[in-house]
């Protein structure tokens, strides 16, 4: 077995055993790769899975990757797997989930600015359903950034955020739009406005 294909075989075995999404730098550590070697390896494996008539594929969000079944086999497997995500989305949930998916990682205050409404409970219910994930904001203590979860990508049958319909278009449109005004402004009005909770306030 050649060195590169041995590494891919190891990567496959690792993803198979672990099951959950796993960080690229963790993969590098376990497989004894040089830093920076992980991502091309993942991309190569992903490509091989797509090119060959395999039943599996990779989901990759730029940081973590996970091995999943291909969406075209959903029908055969659905009886086998308990799907918890398929319940309907509420209007507020859909609105918030779209903004987070296309513009994430995004802070709660930014999301609330865009929607004009306090989104604490909407975020909570999306997190309880596992559709979004949060991580510490590296720039602000005690604040979180929200992003689409692997479970959402799995559920939608896509390989990562970039496969969301029109992702590049919406993402760059909004980024371009936002650029001149660097605002983390909350609705500031005379009457009750979006209320910042301590955790999110800088």
């Amino acid at each position, binding site marked *: 077995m050649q060195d590169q294909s041995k590494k891919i075989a190891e990567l496959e075995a690792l993803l198979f055993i672990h099951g959950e999404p796993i960080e690229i730098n963790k993969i590098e550590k376990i497989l004894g790769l040089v830093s920076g070697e992980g991502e091309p390896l993942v991309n190569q494996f992903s490509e091989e899975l797509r090119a060959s008539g395999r039943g599996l594929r990779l989901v990759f969000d730029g940081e973590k990757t996970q091995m999943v079944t291909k969406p075209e086999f959903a029908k055969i497997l659905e009886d086998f797997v308990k799907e918890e995500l398929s319940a309907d989305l509420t209007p507020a949930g859909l609105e918030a989930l*779209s903004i987070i998916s296309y513009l994430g990682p995004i802070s709660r205050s930014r999301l609330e600015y865009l929607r004009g*409404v306090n*989104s*604490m409970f909407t975020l909570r219910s999306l997190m309880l359903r596992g559709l979004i994930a949060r991580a510490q904001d590296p720039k602000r203590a005690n604040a979180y950034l929200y992003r689409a979860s692997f479970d959402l990508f799995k559920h939608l049958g896509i390989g990562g955020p970039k496969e969301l319909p029109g992702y590049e278009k919406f993402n760059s449109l909004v980024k371009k739009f936002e650029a001149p005004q660097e605002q983390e402004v909350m609705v500031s009005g005379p009457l009750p406005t979006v209320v910042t909770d301590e955790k999110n306030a800088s």
Partner: protein
Amino acid sequence: MSNYELKTEQFSGPIEKLLELIEKKKLEITEVSLSAVTEDFLSYMRKVADSDLALKPSPMALRLLADFIAVASRLIFLKSKSLLPDEEINEDEEGELKDLEYRLRLYSELKPAIKALALAWRSVKPQYSRPYFMTHQFSSLEGAGEGAAFYPGGNVNLESLAEALNNLVAAFKDVEVDTQTIKEKVVSLEEKIKEIIARLSETASSSLKSLSTSKTRSEIIVIFLAILHLAREQLVHLEQEGNFSDIMVRKK
């Protein structure tokens, strides 16, 4: 999710709603079109308030309403500019109106993305993954986990457990503070309503202009909302002669 949360989740956010109203009238996003949809926005807001969540409002329902009021107050301010022409607009107020327009434009760019996701959600073909360490079974079903291998990790001790729980409880308190703030703001509206009733019982009739004399813009908007509320409760009668003339408030 509790019932309260479920109900409030059925409403779109105020920015989305406002944009929808403007698009329905096939208008561009301008001050004029904002003025044109003010009535519709207020009546949608009334729907939010009147949905059964208003009978016994949860903190989330109050919060939702508060955010609608925040947007409504800007719309009303726009209207009041013409109602009270001698009122000066300062830079902040101008900035807030620009900000509202900016957000509406931004949101209109996002709207197709929301539709796209809704479509993707409805036509799902899920992919499935394996559970974490699937092949590592727990020892037995009943009392599973007991007697299996034990890997506590270096940081599990009495202090770290108590600290973790303490952090969680502290986060609960944030939620309570949040809720309290909303309540306080709602109280200021209530007070204003009482004030107007008191004033009307002295004079029997008044006008928006006289009620608003030497008041800050924030107060004027609260007064406006209070009057709308009283009119709906049929405690007062409102009269306006022309489109932009002063509003007369009479006790019933």
